[in-house]
């Protein structure tokens, strides 16, 4: 664990990508093989089940440190991170041990489901064996909140360097649901990946970069293909001999969440991998339903019949990655697309998968006009793909661009503020906003915590501290004075929210120092956005 903590410290002590990769590669060369596998697993989001809840850990730590609960709470709000708070308040360890990471992980993996007294004893013993930095890591592993400030991409690069393999190959090998407790170093770094032998393993998803400004910069439109950017769940459908899997972009297995897609296991020939979007589908209108409808299904492990009838899903396919067991990713987009269309057009009617349509367009200006219709089509904008490019691995700037429509915006006033976590600990960065209720008051309708600069957050933090009206635990009520322009992607009726609406992806566009709270938007104006009928011409996106 000492070397793993040293790796953590080294990653923490630099902002240079090359230094981070070098530190990781060193670890992948020097650490015991089982520890390396765990490191790769943890940094690609594979964690054991939580061995204890946050409340349990906090209580055990308070007891061990001889502190009342309220003081733990107060300390937590200042440190901004429970794992760190606990690591800091505990007295120094009395029985230091340096056990390998894999040992600790084995211990942690065995704890879920054990009686509380047993889990408590194991955690207290671990705290007493570890020093500050190790304790912090241990706590993060216990609570499942483990992050190390390096992306999976950097970890993959470092692993490839240490193993002397190609980065794309390692990226592919790291996909799917392998278990760090069972996998070996050789599994991750040697042998041939992909193809029919790889079970249900998906390929790394290609991600589009945001197109800033217009599409003119991409050059000749003839070299580009355009599709709607659907607002559903990006997925890979893997059909291989004896295996059928639907993977989300976050590599979660979703096969059982969409029973209506089970038919694809038989309809598609073995050795087929499709990249597409799962959408709740309005068959009558021929358009997707809003994301919120799909979202209601995602949370469920099993889907009741009623939901299947109300919100059936359909896949709009973007790409064909594997055909007859052959990896097509090296072929140009146009060739893969032709294969996709040929494959899907041969399917019997009623199979819920179709190619996502390519949009005909005659020059960039015409395409910009199509983009403006996206909201009415139930799409978030367009995706532009280089007709000649291979399927990109990960987010590589160049071959794929997303060209999203402008969001809705609303001017709102801050009503409550809460301190953030991690880098934003002790800074008031999470705000609850209100719109005018039309009777001189404000009704809360959205929370947002991104979009401002560090300097602005610092200034607002000082203001919140000086202007707090009331404290509810970590939340502070402030006078309705500071006005912000919020952007959001969509708005839905929601009986669960006080304002009766729920926003999709709200964030702060800017702090409007020029605008008094008396001039912000009203709930009535906000609700009018609900009335934008599907298929109608879009309203002006600025203001409401």
């Amino acid at each position, binding site marked *: 664990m000492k070397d793993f903590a040293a790796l953590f410290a080294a990653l*923490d*002590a*630099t*902002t240079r990508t090359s230094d981070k990769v070098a530190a990781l590669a060193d670890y992948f060369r020097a650490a015991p093989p089982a520890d390396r596998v765990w490191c790769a697993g943890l940094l690609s989001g594979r964690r054991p089940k939580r061995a204890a809840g946050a409340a349990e850990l906090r209580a055990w730590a308070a007891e061990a*440190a001889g*502190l*009342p609960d*309220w*003081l733990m709470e*107060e*300390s937590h709000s*200042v*440190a*901004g*991170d429970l794992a*760190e*708070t606990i690591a*800091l*308040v505990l007295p120094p360890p009395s029985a230091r041990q340096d056990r390998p990471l894999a040992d600790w992980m084995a211990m942690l993996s065995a704890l879920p489901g054990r009686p509380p007294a047993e889990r408590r004893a194991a955690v207290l013993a671990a705290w007493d064996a570890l020093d500050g930095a190790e304790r*912090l890591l241990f706590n993060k592993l216990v609570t499942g909140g483990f992050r190390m400030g390096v992306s999976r991409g950097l970890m993959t690069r470092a692993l490839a360097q240490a193993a002397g393999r190609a980065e794309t190959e390692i990226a592919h090998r790291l996909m799917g649901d392998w278990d760090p407790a069972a996998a070996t170093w050789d599994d991750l770094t040697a042998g041939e990946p992909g193809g029919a032998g790889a079970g249900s393993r998906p390929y790394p998803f290609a991600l589009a970069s945001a197109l800033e400004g217009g599409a003119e910069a991409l050059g000749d439109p003839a070299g580009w293909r355009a599709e709607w950017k659907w607002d559903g769940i990006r997925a890979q459908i893997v059909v291989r001999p004896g295996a059928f899997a639907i993977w989300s972009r976050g590599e979660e297995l979703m096969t059982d969440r969409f029973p209506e897609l089970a038919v694809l296991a038989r309809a598609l020939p073995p050795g087929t991998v499709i990249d597409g979007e799962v959408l709740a589908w309005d068959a009558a209108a021929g358009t997707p339903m809003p994301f919120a409808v799909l979202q209601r299904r995602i949370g469920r492990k099993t889907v009741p019949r009623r939901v299947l009838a109300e919100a059936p899903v359909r896949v709009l396919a973007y790409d064909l990655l594997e055909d007859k067991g052959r990896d097509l990713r090296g072929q140009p987009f146009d060739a893969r697309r032709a294969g996709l269309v040929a494959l899907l057009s041969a399917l019997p009617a009623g199979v819920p998968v179709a190619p996502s349509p390519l949009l005909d367009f005659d020059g960039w200006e015409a395409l910009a006009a199509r983009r403006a219709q996206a909201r009415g089509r139930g799409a978030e904008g367009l995706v532009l793909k280089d007709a000649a490019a291979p399927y990109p691995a990960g987010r590589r700037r160049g071959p794929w661009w997303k060209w999203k429509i402008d969001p809705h915006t609303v001017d709102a006033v801050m009503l409550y503020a809460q301190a953030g*976590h*991690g*880098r*934003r*600990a*002790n*800074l008031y960065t999470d705000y609850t906003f209100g719109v005018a209720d039309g009777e001189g008051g404000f009704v809360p309708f959205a929370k947002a915590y991104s979009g401002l600069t*560090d300097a602005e957050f*610092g200034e607002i933090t*000082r203001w919140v*501290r*000086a202007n707090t009206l009331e404290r509810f635990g970590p939340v502070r009520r402030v006078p309705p004075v500071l006005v912000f322009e919020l952007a959001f992607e969509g708005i839905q009726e929601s009986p669960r929210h006080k304002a009766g609406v729920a926003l999709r992806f709200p964030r702060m566009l800017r702090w409007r120092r020029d605008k008094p709270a008396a001039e912000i938007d009203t709930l009535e104006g906000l609700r009018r956005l609900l009335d934008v009928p599907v298929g109608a011409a879009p309203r002006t996106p600025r203001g409401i």
Partner: protein
Amino acid sequence: MAREPLLTFTDRGIFCPAGGFHIDPWRPVDRAVITHGHSDHARPGHGAYLATQAALPVMRHRLGEIAAEGLGWGEERRIGDVAVSLHPAGHVPGSAQVRVERGGEVWVVSGDYKVEPDGLSEPFEPVRAHAFVSECTFGLPIFRWRPQAEVMAEIAAWWRANAAAGRVSLIGAYGLGKAQRILAALPGLGPVFTHGAVEAPTAILRAQGYRLPATALARAGGVPAGALVIAPPSALAGPWAARLPAPGAEGVAQGFASGWMALRGIRRRRGVTRGFVLSDHADWPGLNAAIAATGAPRVFVTHGYTAPFSRWLTDQGLDAAVVPTAFSAEGGDPEGAE
């Protein structure tokens, strides 16, 4: 009729009605007793200043022409109806606690303090009191310092590694106190340069007889590879830092020494690549030990996490209350100075 309390808390700061003086007032007053030379304690514009002999040279340097008198450690001075004496607070060289006595009743104002001896400042001396006014900058249990020797060894290892890589080491530390403490405690691994805001107090303290190694003023392009530069934290971000290295040096590695570096969020937010947890204030065990050592049943807390710390002390059976100050309306502003 009950007499007026020995010390009261006013909008100018702590006031002693029976003596007619303020302690570390933040607005101009006729007569001020000053605990130490940091700018949030020694303000300009008072009619008369009283401080330790050891604190006066830096105060004069910072405040210019002032009417000031110095006291020796523990030396008693009669002011009005009270006796005033100054006792080491261990915060920075010359920093004092203020003991005020009237007819056997003793109140002590801590000023800023730390309990671990740093090898340079006069070590903290517990003073028995009936009432104790304590700072609590780090008054939460998440603040627990490691022994100074360990932290200095860490800084030395960092300096050594930078030197091996041909780099200049630049460490941010408050110009009065922390800077000299680091200077005095580090082994001589190479030449040490200072920013002007560090060099001046260093020269003054050296002239007073504090044992400090030789330093030179850092100039653009004049700091060779392997050297250490000590500068105030504010100088780390600017162009001054980037211009330091002499030809041949492989750039500058930056570090920052502060108690706030105990918190990862703050360290990351400040963009500090290397944080050393080194404070001139008492940590949680230190505050609790210092308060216990006064034997005071009444404790007033100020500067820092006052609300939770006061509640904690109340839970421990003390009669504790919060003193508001002009410099931190609320505890724990990590963006502020230590």
